[in-house]
């Protein structure tokens, strides 16, 4: 089975993000970048499925040449080859989905696994757009029944269950207050939630091998996709700074403040 996974380059969530005073964006100096954690879960799931059912994992990313770092990361984890859509300019979610749809038409995967969202802009749209553009079935927020401490997880068993005839996949979805189980016909788009798996560490031999794995370079023009954004960011602002806490002298004052100021009791 062939699985396409994504690897978006995002700011390391441990970096200190500062919004520019004019609200036009964030300061990029000194920021560290990583693969989007939800995408890393997608790569891991792809590798587990390929290990169980045979087949290959293709990792795709859209961006300037720096995104090759995230592609190499996925290759070092074990992905077989990479597709890089070289585009350094502005891009919105529909643009990304359009490019990925063309990549899917070329690669013809049985499943495309994406992070449910990227931790930089938290849009949660690309997977859904992609399924729509391809006319494929879709299951978002894939999770798994077993816990991340379970033996199944330790044995690196996939959380996505492909049917015996290979024509469908069973996806356990995380929804408010419970789990929802879907059977989706293949090919399908699946987006990952946090509890689907614990991604493996890459390995040093993997890093060395990744050097010689192929990265195919494509462009929006070559793919025939107009990526002019339909969405523009007009302003960015930092959330209001949290006020410092206060100390109260006794319980009575605390209860009084909870009533009058916090209004929670």
């Amino acid at each position, binding site marked *: 089975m062939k699985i396409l996974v994504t690897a978006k380059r995002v700011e390391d969530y441990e970096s200190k993000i500062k919004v520019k005073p004019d609200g036009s964006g964030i300061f990029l100096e000194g920021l560290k970048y990583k693969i989007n954690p939800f995408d890393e879960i997608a790569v891991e799931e792809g590798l587990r499925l390929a290990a169980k059912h045979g087949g290959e994992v293709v990792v795709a990313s859209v961006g300037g040449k720096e995104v090759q770092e995230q592609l*190499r990361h996925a290759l070092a984890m074990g992905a077989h080859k990479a597709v890089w859509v070289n585009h350094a300019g502005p891009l919105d979610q529909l643009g990304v989905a359009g490019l990925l749809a063309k990549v899917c038409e070329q690669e013809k995967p049985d499943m495309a696994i994406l992070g449910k969202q990227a931790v930089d802009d938290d849009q949660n749209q690309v997977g859904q757009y992609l399924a729509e553009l391809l006319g494929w079935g879709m299951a978002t927020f894939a999770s798994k029944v077993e816990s991340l401490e379970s033996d199944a997880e330790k044995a690196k068993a996939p959380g996505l269950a492909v049917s015996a005839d290979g024509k469908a996949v069973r996806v356990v979805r995380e929804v408010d207050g419970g789990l929802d189980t879907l059977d989706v016909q293949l090919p399908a788009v699946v987006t990952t939630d946090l509890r689907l798996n614990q991604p493996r560490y890459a390995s*040093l031999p993997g*890093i060395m091998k990744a050097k010689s794995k192929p990265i195919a370079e494509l462009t929006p023009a070559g793919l025939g996709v107009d990526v002019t954004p339909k969405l523009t960011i007009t302003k960015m602002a930092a959330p209001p700074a949290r006020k410092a806490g206060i100390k109260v002298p006794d319980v009575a004052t605390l209860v009084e403040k909870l009533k009058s100021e916090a209004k929670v009791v």
Partner: protein
Amino acid sequence: MSRSPVTDLYRIDDMLTAEERAARDLVAGFIDRDYLPKVGRWFRDGKFPMEVVPTLAEMGVFGAPLPTEYGCAGMNNVAYGLILQELERGDSGLRSFASVQTSLCMYPIWQFGSEKQKRRWLPEMAKGRAIGCFGLTEPDFGSDPGGMRTRARKDGEHYVLNGSKTWITNGSIADVAIVWAKVDDGDSKSIRGFLLEKGMPGFTAQDIHGKFSLRASFTSELSFQDVRVPAANLLPGVQGLRGPLSCLNSARAGIAFAVTGAAIACFEGAREYALSRQMFGKPIAGFQLTQEKLADMLQEIVKAQLVSLRLGRLKDEGKVTPEQVSLAKRNNVKAALEIARSARSIFGANGITDEYPAIRHMLNLESVFTYEGTHEVHTLILGKAITGLDAFGG
């Protein structure tokens, strides 16, 4: 812990290849996620955490600079140095484990071993299924290993070993010990390396207790009483002090990289603490005296990183000399030790507990100052290179 951009003021990152950065970041991720949250406890309990060995092995840390044909990663020395830097940022005990396994055991087997010895041990050691130790130091011979008393007497197809070694990292948990001994009645030119296996009759190991340094690592005494070692367990490729010294030289280059990890941990921790700790109504980072400490730390970290990077490149180009290694070990360990002490002072009373990293690194670095050639011995090596005069005595 996130690394503040100021720690790489000199953009040394830009001088690394993508693979070198990826190797470093891989190990850094493991240290942050799986090691640092528990290290205080391991240090307090005086235990090396055996449970991390399979993960490190899966990542390919052991024997990383050795070739792929023996199940190793085949990385260059700069990447390997950066891996050690991150391990040491976790704890010097963890880094010592990796250094001993790789530079002091796998390296000599690869460099001086027979093909059969290589096939038997290297893949197993890379997978962390066999652990090694390196026995050179003796109770009465530390800086002067040429005086060692351990002897191997040839007896048919065997050698019979008698003597003892001490301060041996991983001694009690090792499956294979590389023991250096003089053969028959020979002098230091007769020194050979022997592969002693766990359970050989007459070979015992006992841990040294009461350590205040490298507590999250096992350090042991080895004793040999008529241990019969098959002649096939002798390392055929080297004779004399050159054997152990070339292993040490390779390990020392790694140490020059490694200690910067401890220094970075102390610097980052102290910087963060100084920004949040308020005294006299402002953060202690706002006082000039604290800033001087932090400026001194950063300056030494930058210098140490440049020295070790250059050393690693020279090693990769096959141009490295022992004097270069001595300078890097001597400079970087001293710098890291002073950074740890200075960081300790910024943490105030909190700094003497294992809740904060400084005192643990400070205590660890006292060992690093002494092992792999004491600071003084490296001074003498440089002194001899500068003047042509040998000040070792003897």
